[in-house]
């Protein structure tokens, strides 16, 4: 990692409906003694009862880029606020962006990839979605945003678990898992979880993202997976499903987002890269997130890849360990994804 990267300020995006617990979590971030200083960008002052000069109010401004691509949107207000904050960088160690309940997380995230100035000074750390365990089923019925926020998250804080029965809770969690098999889920009451679980996660840092999540795309096979509070992946591997894939948009009511998980062996780089390029160009508007670990034929390092709509980034992560299975895993989260076609074309990229 270069010096430029290490001095980039990490940015955490908090999404979630009104009442899900964003303010509680923000107040904890601002008041707890964790030795770090945060600049916080909010849509409205007021609810945060803390007087802090580093709380900045900003009007949500979604700007479409003039390049003919409808999914290329950025948050113009964030470009300006981040630029202003970064002119006096000594004041804080990290930035937290609180979005409104109805906010689309995509333009927020894309700002950190598409704007050169923002990108040079900051890095998107993680998108954290707060979910109200009691009201999520209702939210999913009446809006698409609630689903988008979960689909887009790296970390889901399933809050207010004390207000539901254990059965309701496992149902809600299964729903979240169905929308987003790649996210980490934490069950909480009063947003009470270690702040290290939401801050400085490096979820968009390709060299760290999957290292944090060694069981990426493995634990999702069992849907009623009994996660405990604080969800330490419990270590049992689910190997032996070669070329396993599945898509599940409809088994849970009110869920329109689907995920397509693909697995395969070593990929032919001459086939894989043109394929992923083409898929993201053609299916970009339907793809909310994609994440994957790719084994490339003749390459002794793991290749990690991630994307937001049409933006994809990939890099070598680390050498394959001795005895580690050279396996490729890729998950698409989005809408109207053709699972069969994705699987077929993915399989066709495998090295002979």
């Amino acid at each position, binding site marked *: 990692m270069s010096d430029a990267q290490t001095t980039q300020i990490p940015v955490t995006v908090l999404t979630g409906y009104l009442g899900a617990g964003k303010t509680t979590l923000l107040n904890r971030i601002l008041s707890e003694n964790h030795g770090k200083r945060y600049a916080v960008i909010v849509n409205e002052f007021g609810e945060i009862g803390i007087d802090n000069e580093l709380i900045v109010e900003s009007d949500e401004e979604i*700007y479409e880029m003039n390049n003919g691509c409808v999914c290329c949107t950025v948050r113009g207000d964030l470009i300006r606020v981040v630029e202003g904050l970064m002119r*006096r960088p000594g004041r804080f160690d990290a930035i937290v962006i609180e979005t409104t309940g109805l906010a689309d997380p995509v333009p927020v995230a894309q700002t950190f990839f598409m704007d050169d100035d923002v990108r040079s000074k900051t890095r998107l750390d993680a998108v954290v979605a707060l979910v109200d365990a009691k009201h999520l089923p209702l939210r999913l019925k009446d809006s698409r945003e609630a689903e988008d926020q979960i689909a887009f998250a790296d970390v889901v804080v399933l809050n207010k678990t004390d207000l539901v029965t254990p059965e309701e809770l496992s149902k809600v969690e299964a729903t979240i898992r169905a929308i987003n098999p790649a996210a980490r889920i934490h069950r909480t009451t009063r947003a009470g979880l270690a702040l290290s679980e939401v801050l400085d996660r490096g979820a968009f840092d390709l060299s760290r993202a999957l290292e944090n999540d060694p069981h990426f795309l493995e634990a999702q096979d069992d849907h009623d997976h009994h996660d405990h509070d604080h969800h330490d992946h419990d270590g049992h591997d689910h190997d032996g499903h070669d070329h396993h894939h599945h898509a599940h948009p409809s088994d849970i009511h009110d869920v329109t987002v689907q995920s397509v998980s693909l697995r395969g062996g070593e990929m032919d780089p001459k086939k894989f890269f043109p394929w992923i390029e083409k898929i993201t160009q053609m299916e970009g508007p339907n793809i909310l997130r994609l994440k994957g670990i790719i084994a490339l034929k003749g390459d002794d390092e793991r290749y990690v890849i991630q994307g937001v709509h049409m933006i994809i980034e990939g890099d070598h992560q680390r050498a394959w360990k001795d005895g580690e299975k050279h396996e490729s895993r890729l998950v698409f989260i989005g809408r109207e994804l053709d699972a069969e076609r994705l699987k077929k074309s993915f399989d066709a990229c495998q090295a002979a």
Partner: protein
Amino acid sequence: MPTVAPLDLDGHCVAAVFLGDVPHFALADGTIHRLDHGHKTAQANDGLLAAFHDAADDRLITGGEDGKIFSVTAGGNAAELASAGKKWITSVAAGPQGAVAYASGRIAFVRFADGKTREFSHPRSVEGLAFSPKGMRFGVARYNGATLHFPATDGKPVELEWAGAHTGITFSPDGAFLVTTMQENALHGWKLADGKHMRMSGYPGKVKSLSWAPKGKWLASSGAPAAIVWPFSGKDGPMGKAPLELGTRGNAMVTSVACHPSQDVVAVGYDDGMVMAVRFADAKEVLLRRPGKGAITSMMWDKQERRVAFGSAAGDCGVIDISA
């Protein structure tokens, strides 16, 4: 040979200007430094975000994180002009008859010399502000175009549309053209008489600095490895004409431009801190300052046309004397 009197400050310089022939440097922390028989300091905003040099009144208008507007005059006298609540002031401008405009979120305010203030609400954020040199009229850069207001009357605003996010705005010195900087790497212009569009694109980076040459014959811009200078002497502006590319360097980007007050010469500041002066006629270059610590953010010529004040993102500011 030009000589440089350095002034090493701690922080991002938002504006380097001459007030009453004294160089002043406004930093992002709101301190105003000046070289006036030694280094002296005054305080304006608590967090300074935007600054505009008001040549007619020989003052610097600043806006900041504290929601306040200050007027800074020679000798470092900083006086609060207005306050607009807790939101950041993201853009300021000065106009005829002592009028000042400032933006907070989606509202543009105009404060007249007598202290009276008017508000202009917009459906989207006010990204940039500029007064027309003639008449009481100001322009707002916004998403999908620009809006012209007539604050002295109740005249209906004029909407100029062009898809995309417009972030900055300037009128030509004769008031005939309006030019905006955009979120994408381009400028857009309108000929105000007939609303004709002018597309000025092809920049590898965002354009953040614009400067009109004397009589508005040229518009110099940053955002490329050279100063891109568009001809505006024809009645249709730069349409169908190629811009000049001055001070081209292979390994650095131009971040600031400042046209000479009377001659067709531009001071060009780069992202490595170098400053050159380049003549339009033959593209002849003179090195004014070697690379420094940070990108040049602001420059201004003095009235005697002898000195250039410059500021940088890293705080290594100074004054270049070209007569020495």
